[in-house]
């Protein structure tokens, strides 16, 4: 048996699918990417661009496929799935990394006890009826007692007892409890600075203090109720009478500086005035005695000559 010919044939076939280049091609299987770092061949490029590009791409793709086909595979319904390795080339993210949320009270308990999450389905098998029923939603099991037309009641039950209302009340309570726990989880996650009861107490005390001072005499002459704390005023602080000269100088200069500065000016933008000109608005106001520019336009002579002002001035 001549095995060499078979081996040669096998080798030739293998040659068909391997790609030999000067610098081996870098393959990032995670991104399905192949980078060919060899310099571009000028002659082949100038001769026929499209063929050159196609040949380049074919070689690159062949190398990439060789790498992909050598990855471990998993059988699935759509054929073999190659397990891709981790990505080497890093791309910038679109959004910031998600902030890790603190675990909720239940999550902490479950982690401590080792309880794993079991995903429940919407439908449940009901042995009695021998069918799949909804746990919640339309014709849900949770509303069964409210929606059924007949409910058995105990012999010693109250005459007012309405089992439908009782069941509905229970369900609403469960919802409210869940809502309360959810809000408490959110408050804990958002990391509110003060704990619940103490922050509420501080708020109440603050509002009481403001109310007490909101009278006509600012709370000074009001009678105090039993159990109310004395109102604390703000204590004024005065600098000591003897200060160092340097300190005094500094504070004086600071005061002058703030007086001079534009920090607390109400009218920010400077007026569009020519240098040294008068304030036209004020001048008109003074000259016309408040009447305005229109009254000044030739109205003086008229006023002085014909219409004499006075108690009995004017036309008779």
């Amino acid at each position, binding site marked *: 048996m001549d095995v060499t010919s078979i081996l040669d*044939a096998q080798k030739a076939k293998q040659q068909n699918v391997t790609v030999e280049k000067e610098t081996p091609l870098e393959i990032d299987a995670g991104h399905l990417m192949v980078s060919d770092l060899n310099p*571009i061949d000028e002659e082949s490029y100038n001769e026929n661009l*499209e063929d050159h590009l196609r040949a380049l791409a074919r070689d690159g793709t062949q190398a990439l496929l060789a790498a992909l086909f050598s990855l471990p595979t998993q059988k699935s319904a759509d054929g073999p799935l190659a397990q891709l390795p981790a990505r080497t080339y890093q791309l910038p993210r679109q959004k910031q*990394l998600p902030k890790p949320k603190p675990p909720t009270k239940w999550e902490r308990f479950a982690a401590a006890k080792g309880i794993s999450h079991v995903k429940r389905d919407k439908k449940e098998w009901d042995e009695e009826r021998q069918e799949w029923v909804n746990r919640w939603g339309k014709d849900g099991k949770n509303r069964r007692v409210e929606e059924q037309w007949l409910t058995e009641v105990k012999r010693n039950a109250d005459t007012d007892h309405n089992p439908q209302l009782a069941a509905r009340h229970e369900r609403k309570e469960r919802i409210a409890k869940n809502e309360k726990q959810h809000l408490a989880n959110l408050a804990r996650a958002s990391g509110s600075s003060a704990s619940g009861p103490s922050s509420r107490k501080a708020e109440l005390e603050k509002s009481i203090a403001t109310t007490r001072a909101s009278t006509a005499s600012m709370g000074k002459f009001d009678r105090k109720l039993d159990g109310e704390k004395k109102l604390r005023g703000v204590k004024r602080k005065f600098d000591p009478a003897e200060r160092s000269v340097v300190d005094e100088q500094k504070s004086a200069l600071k005061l002058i500086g703030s007086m001079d500065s534009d920090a607390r000016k109400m009218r920010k933008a400077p007026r569009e005035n020519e240098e040294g000109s008068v304030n036209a608005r004020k001048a008109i106001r003074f000259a016309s005695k408040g009447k305005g520019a229109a009254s000044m336009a030739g109205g003086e002579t008229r006023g002085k000559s014909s219409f004499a002002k006075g108690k009995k001035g004017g036309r008779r």
Partner: protein
Amino acid sequence: MLRVIKPKTARSKRALDAREPKEVEDPRTVIFVKGTHTGEVVNGVFKDLMALKRPHAVAFNKKNVIHPFDSATNSSTTSSSAAGSSTSIASLEFWAAKNDASMFVVGQTTKKRPNGMTFVRMFDGRVLDMIEVGVENYKAMADFKTPKSTPGNKPLLHFASELFDTHPRFIHLKSMLIDFFNGEEVDSISLIGLEHVISISLGPTPSTLNDATSMSLLPSTYSADSVQANPLAAVASASFIASSLPPTAATSLAMASASLPKVHIRAYTTKLLSSGVRVPRVELVPMGPALDLVLRRSQAPDADMLKLAMKRPKLKKTDVEKGLGKKRKNVEVDEMGDLRGRVHVGLQDLSKLKGRRMKGLQEERPGKKQRIEEDDGDDDMDDE
């Protein structure tokens, strides 16, 4: 600028939660925006690129006045400028927030820059980086009378030229194009479903680039390994270096930008032929658009923003067991998949080791020996 919407229905709440940041992100949604004048070429390119990018692509129908490279200096002359940045950037940020998109392609044709396209990438609602290219020699997908690949398939990417690893502008372009063409990030892929390849190659490297020693444009801490880890770091810092280069090097940089090689983008469908071995032989059939691009302006990413953008989530325990993460000395994962460590204890002098007391094994004390000698024939010994 966008008002914060409080969800009132379960469906809107789900939609809002889908926009939250995730550890492994969805592919970037691209918005194709047309400027005031586009032209036939740009319109055709947009149609083809959108076909390649479906379903993660949105096309704006109307023309918009948008100039992404409008710098902030223009707006500072007006006294009332609410936004410090130019209004084009503000528009981009608004559109990104509204459409939950993180990438833009802005098309504009002017006399000075014919058939121009600007790729803009966003991070955290702000512009990260931009690259402007000009399209020459465009052949539409419809002109190739060949079968096309299924839309939504993940493409194979092929980059050919050593400049993609050395020249900062091409490193930047490579990162941008991978982000553009990338599909979903998957852990496993069906080998039959590898239908198309997008090949991006450059023209031959002109000799001027080689003489100008493109390596000098990169920081000295640059190394081949660091490229893969953070390729854009080289680009971001190179822009700082360019501003501080000595005059001779700066002029050579300017010269080099004029003679950058062209970028050729081609898309092919793969035909797998059976060879004798497990790996099939691949033949390519040209499918999609054929574009030749010329690099124009670009804006490198800000170093701080880039650092935030490149942050990775902490490695989970399962990954560390698989062998990822930094190699720690004296710790390794054995065949069973357990993490094993070695504890090194120094040399021990076993003679000085203190074990349990056993009277018979104890050494006789010297004092005791003397007493034995003195008391001859005395059998009763006191206890120690």
